[in-house]
Each structure stands twice: as C-alpha cells, then as structure tokens.
C-alpha cells in the first residue's frame, strides 16, 4: 500500500514539475541553461520503488516528457513519441541495481543518479536533433546547457531526499543478507 501511495505521489510531483519548469526562467549566468526537475523525482522513484512500480513510473514519466517536448514542424514530428519512454525504462532498470545501497540510506546514490540522468537525457536529445537537422555544433553554450541542469539536479536531489524522509517516504534501513 505504501508503494502505491509513493508511486502516485511521485507521479503527481513529476506532472507538476513539468509545469513548474515552464515558469522557471533560463539561468542567464550559466548560458541560459534550463532547470530540469523531473529527473530528481524520477530517480527517487526508480531507486525507492520495487521493480514493477519503478518501470511503470518510468513509462509514465517518459510518456509525460514526450508529450511535453514533442515538436511538430511542417507536419512532421522531430523526435517521435516513445523514445523518452525507452530511455527512462532503461535507466530505471539500471538504477534498480543500486537500490540496495539507496535502501541502506545512501542519499548520494540519488544525487548522482539524478545529475547523471539529466546530463544523459539532454545529451541524447541533442544528439537526436543533430542527426535530424544535420551539422554538428559543439560550443561552450551547448556544454553549459547540458551540464548545468545536471548539476542543479545533483544539488537539489538531497533536498527532495531529506524532505521525503521527513515525510516518512523513506524505507526503514534493511539488514543486507550475509552470504
């Protein structure tokens, strides 16, 4: 029952994050990079929830993100619906491997996961539009647009982690089975 509650709470947080992000202005000091909040909640869920819940969360997050970022130009879609789902599900599966560490209270796993995921996701988007539009463009501006959201996710993750812990969303420390 607790997993279901956490799952739906995170889903609401992810949905609201997608809206809140639209009202956060670009960070002009850091090359107009944007703040990405979704990876923080997604990685938290992928690390905390059991496998089926984590995959379902990844699926829905990917779907929400895809529907938010779908771009139409001349009757065509730039990046098709579904690719984010693919990416989110793969990363959620990978994060499940780090779940035992997270359940033992290692908050830094969440922070690193969020930061790395934000960087990977934005890079993947950039690679896809580069393939689609042609011409490779790498500049300090591109790098800051990729790295800054990741760094912000990394820094904000502990806030979410400890807030959730205070609200009782964190699991009780478990004893790891000794072999």
């Amino acid at each position, binding site marked *: 029952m607790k997993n279901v509650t956490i799952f739906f709470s995170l889903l609401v947080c992810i949905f*609201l994050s*997608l*809206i*809140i*992000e*639209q*009202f*956060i*202005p*670009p960070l*002009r000091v850091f*090359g*107009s*990079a*944007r*703040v*990405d909040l979704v990876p923080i909640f997604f990685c938290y869920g992928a690390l905390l929830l059991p*496998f*089926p819940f984590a*995959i*379902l969360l*990844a*699926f829905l997050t*990917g*779907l*929400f993100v*895809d*529907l*938010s*970022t*779908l*771009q*139409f*130009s001349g*009757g*065509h*879609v*730039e990046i*098709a*619906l*579904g*690719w984010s*789902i*693919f990416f989110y*599900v793969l990363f959620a*599966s990978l994060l499940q491997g780090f779940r035992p560490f997270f359940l033992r209270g290692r908050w830094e796993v969440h922070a690193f996961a969020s930061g790395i995921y934000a960087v990977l996701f*934005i890079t993947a*988007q*950039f690679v896809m*539009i580069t393939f689609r*539009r042609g*011409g490779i*463009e790498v*500049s300090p*501006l*591109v790098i800051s*647009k*990729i790295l800054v*959201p990741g760094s912000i996710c990394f820094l904000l993750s502990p806030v979410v982690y400890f807030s959730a812990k205070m609200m009782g969303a964190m699991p009780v420390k478990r004893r790891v089975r000794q072999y």
Partner: protein
Amino acid sequence: MMRHLNLIIVVAVLLVAVILSTIGAGSMHALKSRFISNQAPFVEAGSAIKKKFEATTRGIKTLDQLEEENSDLITQNKELLAENQLLRGKEEENQKLREALDYLKKDPKYKLLPARIVSRDASAWWNTVKINRGFEDGVDNDMTVITETGLVGKVTTVAKNESVVLLITDENCKVAVKIAGTQELGILSGKRVQSADKPELVINYLTKNAALEPGQEVFSAGVSGGIFPPEIKLGKIQSFHTRELDGQAIVTPAVDIPNVEDVFVVMGAK
C-alpha cells in the same frame, strides 16, 4: 522466476514504446493536444502566480530606480516626483496596451486575435511558448503570431484553450525573407543553440555579393503557398559574411522575444 517476470515487464513496456513511436504525426498531435488541455488549468494558475510575483518584483525595482532618479533630480519639484512614483508602473502597462490597441486598429489587412503568452518551453533545445488561445477561439495550426513590432512565430499545436507557438528563434522555424532596399531573398531561421538574453536569427542562401549593411530591415517575403504573410518585419541586419556557396547574414530580431508577453494571432485576411 522473479527475474524472468521483471524481464517480461521491461520487454512489454519497451514494446509499447516502440508501438507508440510508429503512430502517425496526426495521432501524436491529438495526444499532445489532449495533454496540453489537461495541463491548461495548472499552467493558467502558474501564469497568474508568476505575473503577481513579477508585479511585486517590478515594484521593488521601480523603487530602486526611483531612488537613483531621486538623487539626480533633487532639484526638481518634489510633488511631481512623488506623482511619477505612483504612476510609473501603471503608465508603463497603459502604454503597452495602448500600443497594442493602436496596432490592432491600424492594421486593416488581417484579422487579429489578441493573445497572452502563458508559459515558455523548459527544454534546452526548442524555443516554443504557450498562448492562452486554442481551437475554441478559432486558432489553427500554422497560423502566424505577431506583435506590433514584428513576427513572433507560428502555431504548431492547438489545444482547447491553449496553443504552442514555435518562435522564430528556433532553428525549425524557417521564413522566406527579403531585405529592404535590395533584391535579396533568403531563408531566415533561428540558431540551434543560443543565449536566451540576446537571440539572433540567421539568413541563409543570400547571394555571395549581396551588398548588405548593418541596420537594413528584414521583412517576410510572403511566398505563395507559404505560411507567413508578406511585409511583416523580422529584424535588422547585424552582420553579413560570405560562405563557399552563398552569403549569410545575422539578424537582430525586431521583437524582444525573451520578454514578449502580448501577441496577436493572424486569423486570416479581412
């Protein structure tokens, strides 16, 4: 057993993702439209909160500015200064609305629908905004969006009460343009990656020996079968350089894209 079940779940979900990626652009458009409609009440609420917040910070800024002005204009009439303090915020807003209304009255060629930008795309690589008008207001795909100073972009997705506008600063928004005072024609688009502070536009396919000077104005050419009506101002030439096969010009947009709030959707010829 559990591992097999997990593997089946992952494969099933990925299969759904693959199926979703194969659906047509029309269906994707409908799904996005529905998603935007569902988000609309939250976006409207967010926009209202942001506006209130900005009004508060603008008030604080005005006081700062007034403090500075006060020291410079110490010799001026104190009564007039106090009156200015009170009226400054309201006058600015009034002026903006008056300009927009004048433009609405002045332009007899097109039917214009006033709209407000409610949110901006949070993604790193796309430049879009949402406006508070949708298909219920008669907005349709590929409609042009302008302000009293020039072109803003075109509508790419329409939901019930909101629409997504692809800004001219996006690389995917391509406009056939002409340079005032010359015979030069080219294709204008945004840059793939650019600063949000000072966006720039690029005109490609100009002739190599085009004699362009900084400050020359750029207007939409209005090609037949195109989306954008002719003679809409896009900006001013900032610089021109030749490439191997063509000439390329950098343009400063006529519209202050990062700060624009009120726009008009061109609904068609009157």
